[in-house]
């Protein structure tokens, strides 16, 4: 991927407030183009049309869980190089370990600091790029 800068982020969370906070934080500070969905299913439907550089997905959603969405994404070879980041309110260390072990680029805990969110995502992007 070389030095390509991160531009397009697709984000799914069933909590509208979180979607709004993250979208504003990522657009304002990071200058990214952000598209949001309120369910895992709609994120999967949006993939082809939006062509994200990076995907952020909430772990606990009613229709599909984050890991289920991630599994679906990994079934599509054209999305192999797209890093996926989990967003979660889980706090038990063993559950977090399990989430990290699924092969995602990173796990971001809720609540998060909106002021630094864009920097964190950029850091993950750079790290994932180096793989």
């Amino acid at each position, binding site marked *: 991927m070389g030095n390509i800068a991160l531009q397009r982020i697709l984000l799914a969370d*069933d*909590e509208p*407030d*979180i979607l*709004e*906070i993250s979208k*504003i*934080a990522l657009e*304002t*500070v990071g200058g990214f183009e952000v598209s949001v969905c309120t369910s895992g299913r709609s994120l999967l439907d949006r993939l082809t049309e939006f062509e994200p550089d990076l995907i952020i997905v909430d772990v*606990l959603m*009613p229709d599909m869980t984050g890991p289920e969405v991630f599994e679906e994404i990994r079934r599509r070879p054209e999305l192999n190089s797209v890093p996926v980041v989990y967003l979660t*309110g889980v*706090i*038990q*260390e*063993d559950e977090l370990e399990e989430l990290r072990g699924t092969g995602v680029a990173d796990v971001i*805990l*809720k*609540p*998060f*600091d*909106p*002021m*630094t969110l864009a920097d964190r995502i950029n850091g993950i992007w750079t790290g994932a790029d180096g793989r």
Partner: protein
Amino acid sequence: MEGDRENRATTEQLRKELERLRANFLEKLPGRLQALVEEWNALQEDGWSQDGARALHRSVHGLIGTAGSLGFAKMAKTARRLERLLVALLEGTHPPTEEVRSEVIEWFERIGEDASSEAKDGFDPSSFENAAEWGTPLFEPRNLIVVVEQEDPFARELAHQLVHFGFELQMFKEIDEMVEQGVERRPAAVIMDLSSPDGELIGEEVASKVRDALGGKVPLVLVSNRSDIEARLDAVRAGCSSYFIKPVNYSDVLETLDRLTRSEPEPYRILIVDDETDTAVFHANSLEAAGLETVMVTDPLDVMSQIVEFQPDVILMDVYMPGCTGLELARVIRQEEAFVGVPIVFLSRETDRMKQIAALGEGGDDFFTKPVPPDQLVPAVSARAQRGRTLRMFMEKDGLTGLFRHSRIIEQLEVAVRRADRQHGRLAVAMLDIDGFKEVNDQFGHLVGDQVLKALAYLLRQRLRMSDVLGRFGGDEYVVVLPDTDGTAAMEKMDNIRRNFAAIDHDTGHESFAATLSCGVAEFPVALTSHELIAAADEALYRAKRGGRNRVLLAGKEK
């Protein structure tokens, strides 16, 4: 310069946006909380359902994320506490008691109060500095126990009790159902009620089917009507860990589960004292390769502080060192009462057998000519460490409850205080006392009294973390040392234990009764030394007793 200005501008813009979102959130919050309270009330009035409770839990979970990300730290923390309470309810099998119902309502009210108090402050980016702590888990993950039983009052009552002791449960009607549906995760133990349709005997075939379904070797506990030798042999051959004949004393089952679910023993700790770094490294590597933990000391004068800090099971010590000899050092170590029992193994290039024997007279337990090859060092050191630990356990642990004795818990507390002091960390101490314990003894006899004492020990062990230190101070008084925990979190934790304890049925053989406990909590650095912490916790405990028992109070807070 240009970039800096741009950065400041975007930060300012984001802050304005966040202020707008905060205002929106606050405006909608009262309605949102009201709806959640109504949902909660409906759950009580229209009949308790796990699904309903789960939906409510999701809403509260979502609230934490939003409130926290908008900088409402206090509200997020309060909502997190409510979430924990809801999780505990979800894990239980019974609808909440009246007391818990009103507690949930109170938490909703407190979330509202936090919101109004935080609304005045405006958005504060520094509120995120401690964000990681908002979610620090108070408890270890629960042990899962799988129960296979028919509609049996015994099993239902047992399940009810297990939940109060902090176990998580998964129940099946029969083995095939378990095999088909699978278990949530690997359980700590399986309790099987042997009666039809699965039959009165288990047999090796069924036992291995059960193990396959569980994904490995999980202790099997059998409960049976049969006491004959054929049935018992069958259980042994099938590799079962325990066998209980009905009617079963719950206390016995709990004792077994407590034993089966105790954590894996920690690796042996070996302190290596040797001024020759190469040899020390060689020995450390051999021991670590075998899974032992080591700390090296190359200056003999550092030994005493390392012994206190590292708490070695064995000391491996060079005889000839500059400054002082190993023999002198051994004598110094033996002068400390607490370290009399730690095995010391001498190492030297000395091959003179007589000199070696003389060294043993100084309090050494063995003598090796160095360097010691790994195949000799590892078994010799492990065997001594094991014996040393067993001996120490008898010296340090209370025979009835398996918790630390008085003197030992004070030592552990001192280590914890030093650590908290050095790391500017937090630390809480709780003292617990069973309410009216003398009456329990007088009314039901000492055997039943002992059972109550043990029940509290099991509960503490199940519910608290590995890093928490548990001790019995004597009589019916217990001490818990909670590292990295502030007073408020400790209160919450102990209050949770208080509620669990009150819900346990103690069995006298023909009737059952409930007992309660009172607790006082003190925190570092409000109290600074082990002595002050104990005294402050004790004072709070005294106030809890005087205030009507069955409660947890924080030292220094009148109320």
